[in-house]
């Protein structure tokens, strides 16, 4: 048992709760792991830790709905403990973990294990996704009922698309019976490449995937969602064409949601520049018009959440010729800062940006997180919106250092993270 955290009072911060739209300067009381009160000038009784939040923003701890953990199976890249440290440094108190680990999270015992491992960190809640198909191999449905009972929040094969149309149809139909979503990695199967097809990939001589591969699978799966009445979620959507399809499907009343990841609204394909493998991602970075479309879709509500799509890699995974290097970038520490750049740039309000990082992914996953209101768990993130810092690969908290944002100057520094009333980052 950990000792009870000391009661604390965070004073004078701009308190933002996107779930309710609440935005005011106030003092926030933390006691017994929950938010005990929000108000002004409450004084500081004996034994209460006082934290000065003046000039800062206090918001719910971030809910990152797409994180690959190195554990189980790739502990040399990252462990749950190191990922938890990186998450705390990024203001994240809840993360949804992808199941395409080794072994895949396709049994109730593994789901339970992953949840427990999150609790053991004391700093982050792990919401396990479970495999959509046994072993994430795309062939046989996993036990959605038993997995959901064990605590799986949704079903996905992680970075592997559910390729077969019949299999995807079965998955959507079967998941509907248990009230869960299927999360799809939208890239039409059969293509493979290290970059997005176009002038840049041609000039660099890289094998490339057409951007249309994303819209192709989105189009198919929207039809299947319509056919089955199932709920589909598209991860890290990155192209204008796919977003247009999703926008139209939403206005048509289909049960569809999507997220994107910071690289797809902050970077374009030129970031791979001189064969920089840290900018090799899956899906690959896109051309500028696609990045602009992602920015628009964030603002107009088409995109429901911003997730880090954190994919830890070892230096050796990346120190290879570009086409042979592993795809994927870290994202826990930079999730907030890159998103805030959209606020600074005038594309998003601070309230909308924080909703994309907290209440919206939480409600999409059907969990009681991402709220800052009396009685809610004291999962909090305190940050200074103007304080600048620089992303330097090799100096980031946590183990994996493969950030695509190496060298990027950011505004918005996390000064404190609380999990159930306990300070887990300072």
């Amino acid at each position: 048992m950990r000792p009870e955290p000391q009661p604390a009072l965070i004073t004078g911060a701009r308190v933002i709760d996107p779930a309710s739209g609440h935005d005011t300067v106030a003092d926030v009381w933390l006691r017994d792991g929950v938010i005990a009160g929000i108000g002004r000038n409450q004084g500081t009784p004996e034994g209460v830790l006082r934290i000065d939040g003046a000039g800062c923003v206090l918001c719910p701890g971030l809910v990152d709905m797409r994180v690959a953990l190195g554990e189980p199976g790739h502990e040399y890249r990252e462990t749950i403990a190191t990922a938890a440290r990186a998450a705390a440094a990024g203001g994240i108190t809840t993360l949804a973990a992808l199941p395409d680990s080794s072994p895949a999270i396709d049994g109730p015992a593994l789901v339970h294990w992953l949840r427990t491992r999150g609790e053991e960190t004391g700093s982050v809640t792990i919401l396990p996704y479970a495999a959509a198909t046994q072993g994430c191999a795309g062939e046989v449905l996993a036990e959605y009922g038993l997995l959901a009972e064990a605590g799986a929040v949704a079903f996905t094969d992680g970075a592997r698309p559910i390729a077969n149309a019949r299999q995807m149809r079965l998955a959507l139909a079967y998941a509907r019976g248990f009230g869960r979503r299927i999360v799809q990695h939208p890239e039409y199967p059969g293509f493979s490449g290290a970059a997005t097809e176009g002038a840049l990939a041609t000039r660099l001589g890289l094998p490339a995937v057409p951007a249309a591969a994303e819209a192709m699978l989105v189009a198919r799966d929207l039809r299947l969602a319509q056919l089955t009445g199932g709920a589909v979620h598209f991860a890290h959507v990155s192209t204008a064409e796919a977003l247009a399809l999703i926008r139209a499907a939403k206005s048509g009343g289909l049960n569809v949601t999507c997220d994107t990841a910071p690289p797809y609204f902050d970077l374009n394909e030129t970031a791979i520049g001189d064969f920089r493998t840290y900018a090799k991602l899956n899906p690959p970075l896109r051309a500028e018009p696609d990045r602009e479309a992602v920015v628009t879709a964030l603002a107009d509500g088409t995109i429901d959440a911003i997730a880090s799509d954190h994919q830890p890699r070892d230096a050796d995974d990346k120190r290879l010729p570009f086409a042979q290097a592993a795809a994927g970038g870290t994202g826990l520490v930079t999730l907030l800062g890159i998103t805030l750049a959209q606020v600074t740039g005038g594309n998003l309000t601070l309230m909308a940006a924080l909703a994309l990082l907290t209440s919206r992914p939480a409600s999409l996953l059907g969990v009681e997180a991402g709220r800052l209101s009396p009685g809610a768990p004291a999962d909090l993130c305190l940050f200074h919106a103007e304080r600048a810092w620089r992303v330097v690969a090799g100096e980031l908290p946590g183990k994996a250092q493969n950030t695509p944002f190496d060298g990027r100057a950011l505004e918005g520094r996390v000064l404190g993270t609380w999990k159930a009333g306990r300070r887990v980052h300072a």
Partner: protein
Amino acid sequence: MTQDRYRFPHRHLLGIEGLYPPEILQILDLAESYVLLNRKGKTSRDLLRGRTMINLFFEDSTRTRTSFELAGKRLGADVLNMSVATSSVNKGETLLDTATTLNAMQCDLLVVRHDQSGAPALLARKVDAAVINAGDGTHEHPTQALLDALTIRRRKGRLDGLTIAICGDMLHSRVARSNIHLLTTLGNQVRLVGPPTLIAAEAERLGVTVCHDMRAGLAGADVVMMLRLQRERMAAGLVPSVREYFRFFGLDATKLHAAKPDAIVMHPGPMNRGVEIASEIADDPAVSVIADQVEMGVSVRMAVLDVLSRAGRNAP
């Protein structure tokens, strides 16, 4: 024998769909009288004397074939069994060639089981005999629905205004389809309960409600009808595992608790214990009427043979 004023107007029994309530009730009433006669061992062996009945089974079946055979023999018919393993169908003969052969044999009653939906209907267009569908593909199994109806009526005292939950693999079930037609025609409320992967598209259009949660589906039910889940469904990926299926869609005492206290449990057989039904339920005489169903099967089939052979007998 029962002197019905209502004359059964169909030459064949290919399905329940399209039958009117009085036609269904006529068969059930007649079957009821056969139940009593069967129990006393006093069935007439003259009714179908000199008539030929062929059980033409393209699919393995023990209980349905035996039940028809017994029904035919109790009415005095000459009964022949032809099964696919011994017939010339294996040698490449088409279904219609088989029909021609059977016609030449002057068969009066032809009982057909086939793995293809619509095969008995195809035969019916080509043979002179009265054709009885003993189960075709995933289409219909009319005598099963009739025997289920008789079982329900004897237990519940009525066959209207009841709530009946049909649970399991409706997608592949001819039993479910025939039961849906029969029970809705007579004014009962039918619910289909199962995972979405085992419920056919637009099943609601058959006049039923669909439910994916077993407890909700069983709530307040008078009758719980379980369907067989074949292992092939697992291989086809429609259901992930037996343990998951049993946990969410298998009938056990806990789930049955949601139904009415006097609810009865039915199963067309053969049962997969521990897959769709727990032994504690299947073997509980207080709720399970599975043995009754088998008994009713013979009487219902006698009634069907009776009504269909009347035309040729100049019976009223």
